[in-house]
Structures are given as structure tokens and as C-alpha cells.
């Protein structure tokens, strides 16, 4: 089993009488891309701020790299907040150097790292421009570089795709894959379910401050699947006792099996009746549908 780099245990946080986070527990493993999902106002940013030790929980524990976060640990985490903000009047390179210095790099290391990231994201020519002079997209990219400039072990990205065009979204997605391949851990909070589905291995979903889903995406999808298969074949499904109903679905038939009906037995039936099978795949529920279903169920 991989190391746990972030662990929350029975965490509670209230603001006045409003409970923003209520008895939340989950852990993030080294080298994975972990997704944090939830509707607006669910408590995602509060959770992230507690991981960053910007806010302290009322009860429960938050551990980073095996212990409660200390000042020196902050340099090991890169955080891209949802509300972007940089010193508007400062020049790009100087701002990045300053943040690198604060995160423990030497002046030379900080400069070299900042220049390397600027080059990688095609922004070398803006290094001497003031942040306020950049386009919104470029400001986003500078903010991302500020997150990564000190080569953090854990990268927390809160809505990294907001405000990005499709090309830049792809650039950031690819960058995230590269970072994970290089051994980094990414903690991703995003609304784009399709992106989360392709990038994350495991997710935690929070709704109204409470955890409602947690685990591997495949397992969750299996859990929420409707026990159906997508089949393209010459068989007459009405003749199968395992089938409860079947409907047309994107050029295939979506075949719903009876309660307890095994998909392997259905495949065996197709073979036994000599049907010509062009395609056979398990029908899964998209994460987005699961998200909506869970949120509506708990409403």
C-alpha cells in the first residue's frame, strides 16, 4: 500500500452556527490524483484551507506527511486557490522568485525554476511584465507556475480549469499527468466531472459539509451502475429470462438484467443461442450522473 500523504479524521469546522465541515474523514495516497467533488458551498474550500493550515478544525485531526502541519511543511505543498491573486503591480519573474524564496529555494534556484516553468508554458516573453498587464488566461498560468515553482511534493489545485480555454485546459491536464508520472501527488477540486473522471483514481465527495462518496472511481461507478450491458448482436433479448427490459442506446441496445442477474451468464446465453455479437460492454453511469443523483438524494 502506498504512503498516506494527507489524512483527515473526523474533522469538524463551524463558522458561527453554520457547520461547514461535519465529521469528514479521508486520506490521500502518495503519487495519486485525488479528486474532491461537491456542489458549490459544500465545504470543499474549507477542507482545503484546513489541509493548508490556513484554518484550524474545531475538532478532529488533519495530518500532512504523517503529522500535523508545521510552518516548514508549507514549502512541500503547492496550492492554487480558487480565488486567484497575485501582487498586481509586481513583475512576473520577480513575483515568482519571491514566492520561491519564501518556499525555501535559493535566489538562483528560484530564478532558474521560474524561468524554466515560464518557458515550458510558453510565457518567457512576459517575465518582465507586470501581472496586471497580462491577460486573464496568462495570469492563471502565472498563478499555476507560482504553485509549482518550488517543486512541491503535494499539489493542491482548487478549480484549476476555471477561466481556461480548451487548449489551455488540455495543457494543464497534460501537465498534471506529467507531474503524477514524476511522483507528485495531486489533490484536485474541480467541477468538470469528465476531467475528474479521466485524471483521478480516487475521489471524495462532500455535500452540505458531510462526506457522501469516497473511494476508487471504478468502484463507485460499479456501485451506482444499473446492472445493464450495452450489446450489439442478432439475439432476441425477449427470449432471455435474465433480461428485465431493453432499450435503444446510441446504435446499441441497453439491456437491463433482473435483480441478481449476472452479466457473465447473459454473455453465456448469447453464445448458447448462437447470436452474432458485434459488441458487448458493461453499462456504467457517468460520474456526473452519480454526482447529480447523490446531491439530489441528499437534498
Amino acid at each position, binding site marked *: 500500500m502506498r504512503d498516506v500523504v494527507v489524512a483527515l479524521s473526523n474533522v469538524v469546522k463551524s463558522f*458561527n452556527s453554520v457547520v461547514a465541515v461535519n465529521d469528514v474523514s479521508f486520506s490521500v495516497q502518495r503519487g495519486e490524483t485525488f479528486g474532491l467533488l461537491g456542489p458549490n458551498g459544500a465545504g470543499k474550500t474549507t477542507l482545503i*484551507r484546513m489541509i*493548508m*493550515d*490556513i*484554518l484550524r478544525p474545531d475538532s478532529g485531526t488533519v495530518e500532512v506527511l504523517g503529522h500535523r502541519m508545521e*510552518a516548514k511543511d*508549507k*514549502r512541500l*505543498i503547492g*496550492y492554487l*486557490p480558487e*480565488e*486567484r*491573486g*497575485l*501582487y*498586481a503591480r509586481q513583475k512576473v519573474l520577480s513575483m515568482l522568485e*519571491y*514566492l520561491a*524564496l*519564501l*518556499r*525555501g529555494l535559493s535566489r538562483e534556484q528560484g530564478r532558474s525554476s521560474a524561468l524554466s516553468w515560464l518557458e515550458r508554458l510558453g510565457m518567457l516573453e512576459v517575465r518582465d511584465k507586470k501581472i496586471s498587464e497580462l491577460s486573464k488566461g496568462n495570469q492563471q498560468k502565472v*498563478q499555476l507556475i*507560482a504553485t509549482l515553482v518550488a517543486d512541491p511534493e503535494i499539489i493542491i489545485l482548487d478549480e484549476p480549469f476555471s477561466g481556461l480555454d480548451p487548449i489551455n485546459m488540455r495543457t494543464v491536464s497534460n501537465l498534471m499527468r506529467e507531474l503524477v508520472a514524476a511522483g507528485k501527488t495531486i489533490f484536485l477540486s474541480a467541477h468538470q466531472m469528465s476531467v475528474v473522471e479521466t485524471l483521478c483514481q480516487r475521489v471524495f465527495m462532500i455535500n452540505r459539509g458531510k462526506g457522501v462518496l469516497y473511494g476508487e472511481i471504478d468502484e463507485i461507478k460499479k456501485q451506482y451502475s444499473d446492472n445493464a450491458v450495452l450489446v450489439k448482436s442478432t439475439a432476441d433479448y425477449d427470449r432471455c429470462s435474465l433480461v428485465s427490459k431493453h432499450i435503444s442506446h446510441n446504435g446499441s441496445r441497453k439491456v437491463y438484467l433482473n435483480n441478481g442477474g449476472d452479466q457473465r451468464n447473459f454473455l453465456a446465453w448469447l453464445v448458447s443461442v448462437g447470436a452474432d455479437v458485434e459488441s458487448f460492454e458493461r453499462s456504467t453511469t457517468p460520474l456526473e450522473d452519480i454526482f447529480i443523483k447523490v446531491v439530489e438524494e441528499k437534498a
Partner: protein
Amino acid sequence: MKQILYIIRREFLMAVNRKAYVVSVVVVPLIILLFGLVIKYSVSQYETTKGQATIGIVDQTQLVDFKLAEEAQQQSEESEALIAGSDADKQKYKIERYDDVDVGIDDVKQGKLTALYVVENDYLQTGKVRVYLKESWRITSGKSPGLASFQTLLRSSLLESKVTSETLNRVVTPTKLEELAIGKNDAIGPVQGKWQKMNSFFAPFGLSFILILAIFISTGYLLQSTVEEKENRVIEVMLSTVTPDQLLWGKVLGLGGAALLQVVLYLTLFTLSSSYGLITIDLRPKILVLSIAFTVAGYLLFAGLLTATGIIGGKLRESSQVASVWTFVAMSPFWFLSILVDSPNGTVARILSFFPLTAPLTMIFRLSFTAVPAIDIVISLGLLVISAYASVRASARIFRAASLLYGKRPTVPEIFRWMREA
């Protein structure tokens, strides 16, 4: 620790590179210095121009003894007194005899004479004297130039042959006053000249004002920096990089460094001005050190208050309005200036010194103006240091709790709860 140093460095450099700071550090003292030099120069010019103005007299009665005036020109002390008299003119006047009124008027027109006095034929019976002078003189002075010298000459001329010279002297100069002032600490000494009098009040006033100004320029930057970081959301990036305490102390010390640099420059200027006799102020090392101590403690007190104000207020405009209340209270000892001058160690002065918000200004003024009892210094500085510590500590807690709160203004009980929580 290194992080705090980086933040201190950045905040310090950002502050000292501001135009307003450069103006306050370089231009303001230069203006004050220039102002002092101009006054000093004007006074010395005034001293050197004494005796250069001339009045003319046309005596139609033959009563005036011009020899008395000539004797005065020879700088004989007694004769000068005869001319100067007890109600002397502000300036010395040379007296010239004129026989023709028109010639005298021409000389007034050409500026050779400041005024022409014409003693009329029936003077003895009516006291009638005409005086010709330029219109502009009336506007600036309101009094005929050389009138006292002219009247003294008339008195002397009228009595010269009728009384003894001693009596004449006493008529012309009835008193030679030696004024003694009962000053600070009941010490009796000669009354200071006008320049000295102005200086002994204005220099301590100026010093305390300028040091308080230094405090509020830097705490103003602190407020601005805190509010801006909150407004443009940089604060979350900063708080994910350093702890709230590191960020707060970095800011407080960085901008405090800028304030200290300002204070040192101002004190150096005051010390130099004092040693060159430009101003009269007591700036012995002990007083310099105490002034710095009160400024630093005062800075920390107001730094804490203004940071908390900025964090709670959220928007620069609103925060600045609230912050102006602190400035108002800190400057309030100036309302009691006349009481402080009359009784610098009195009850009002002591109350203002023991109240931490008014202590910096009051104590810096008192220290440079009079000898302050040691007990007052100890109590005032002690209370100020304790308040400054409490202010920065409470502000750090408010900073941690409220730096990421937007939109909703906290209630007073909430603020107190933040201050209690670690």
C-alpha cells in the same frame, strides 16, 4: 525565520520606494530646514539692516536740537538711549535735517527717506506735526516709521535746557528693565528673546509631530498593504506559503524599519539643527533614546490596531475611515497644547502620558520640552509597551481568523472570540 526576513525585506523596499515615502523622508525635512534657514536668515538680515533707514525732519519752529541726533549716530550708548527712548522703534533710524518740505517729499518718493516729519510753526501750542510717507508703508506696518525716535528727539530738545541731564535721561528713558522669568522647575533666569521663545516651543512640537507622522505614514502603509492583499486575494497564496504570524510580523517589522529609518533621519536633522543653533531643543542621548523608544512602541501599538482594522474592514476606503479615528486620538494631545506648555508635568500631561494611545505624542513633546520625572517615563513606557504587545498579539489572532472572510462584517462578540482563540 528566513521567511520573515524575506517578507521584511520586501515590505521595507516596497515602502521606501513609494513616492509618498521619499517625499516624507527627503522633501518634508528639507522644507522644514529651508523654512528654518529662511527665518534665521531673515532675522540676521533684520539685525544687519537696523540703522540703515532714514527719516527727515523739517523744523519750522527751530525747537529741534539736531546735535542730539548726531550724537546718537556716534553710537554713544547714552545718546542712543536718548534717541531710542523707552518706547523704541523696532528699527534704528538715522535722522536728517531738511529745510525744504518739497525736497524732503521728493526724497520720500525716491526712497531715500522712509518718512518726512514736518514740525509746524504752531507746534508748541497745537502739537501739530505732518508726516509724509509712502502709501505702502501704512499697509505693511500700520505705524509711522521712526515715530518713537522722532518723538524722543522732540522730548530731549524741549527739555534739554530746562532740566538736568539725569532728569532728561529719566524722562526719555524712565526705566531700564531687567526682565526675569520664572521658568520650568521654578528656575529664575533672563527672559528669552522672541526667537528663542518660539524655538523652545516649536522645536519640541515639531519633533513630536514629525515622529507621530512617521508612525502614521508607516502604519498607513501597513493598513493599505493588508487591505490590498485581502482585496486582491493574494493573502490566500501568502498564507499557503507562510504562517499568518510570519506574514504579519514580516509586514509589521518591514514597514517598522521604514518608519525607523524616517525617525533616525528626522532626529539627525533635529540634532544637527540644534547643534548649529538653528533650533532650541534638548536632545541629549537619553532623550534621543527615549524618543525612539516611544516612537517604536507607539508604532507597534498602532500597527496592531491598524492591521486589525484593515482585516476587519475589508475595503480600503472603509478601513481608512475607521483608521482615522486612531489617528485622531493619537493626535488629540495637541488640543491640550497650551496646558502642556504651561504645565508640562501637570495632571493633564500625566494623564495623557499614561493613556497608551496618547502617550507617544505627549511623552516625546514633554521629554524634549522639559525635565520629566523618571516615574512618569517608567509608567508611561511600561503601559505603552504592554499595550503594544497586546495589540500586536490580538491583531495576529484577528488576522488568522478573519483574513479570508469576505462580505460579512464580524460582530463585536466575534472579534473578541477571535482574540481569545489561539
